[in-house]
């Protein structure tokens, strides 16, 4: 890994971890730190949102540094992840609506599903091309 790539990876890691931290603060801050203060709650949400945008931009920056095979591998993984998320998400909604089982899904489950799908498809695609 060259120096430019290492810098981009470090930058993405930094924004990702700070996004996770600001998300945690925005989620639990009003309950455990500032006791439902409206301004601080709004401010923490805005900081988290801005941090998220910066994370997306550094991810795009890293993606643009990939070579053609790396781009292909990541694009295929994204296509599989997007397809799986839509199909599994809507199937789950249908099953729940039909009353086949009673399980209240939250948005965090979808985020976890997307993360795991992307990771698994990425590993499979890397193995396919090596």
């Amino acid at each position, binding site marked *: 890994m060259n120096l430019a790539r290492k810098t981009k990876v470090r930058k993405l890691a930094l924004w990702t971890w700070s996004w996770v931290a600001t998300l945690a603060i925005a989620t639990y801050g009003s309950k455990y730190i500032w006791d439902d203060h409206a301004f601080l709650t709004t401010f923490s949400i805005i900081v988290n949102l801005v941090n998220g945008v910066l994370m997306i931009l550094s991810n795009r920056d890293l993606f643009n540094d990939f*070579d*053609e*095979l*790396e781009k*292909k591998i990541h694009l295929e993984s994204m296509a599989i992840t997007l397809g799986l998320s839509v199909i599994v998400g809507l199937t789950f909604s249908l099953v729940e609506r039909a009353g086949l089982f009673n399980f209240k899904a939250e948005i965090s489950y979808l985020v976890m599903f997307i993360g795991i799908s992307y990771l698994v498809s990425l590993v499979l695609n890397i193995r*396919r*091309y*090596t």
Partner: protein
Amino acid sequence: MKNRVRELRSLKNMTQEDLAEIIGVSRQTINAIEKEKFDPSLPTAFKMANLFKLPIEEIFHFGK
């Protein structure tokens, strides 16, 4: 697509790492091209043609 990248690289006594650096791709990409698991883009094919001083069609052969 068949190719002669591994053969031509060996003739120049280059490692995959050397070729990757000159062409501007990762070593894994060179490896995937040599194993014919991945077809390179036109700019990459042209860079290889320039490096090996051969026409593209003498390096890459289109076929099943």
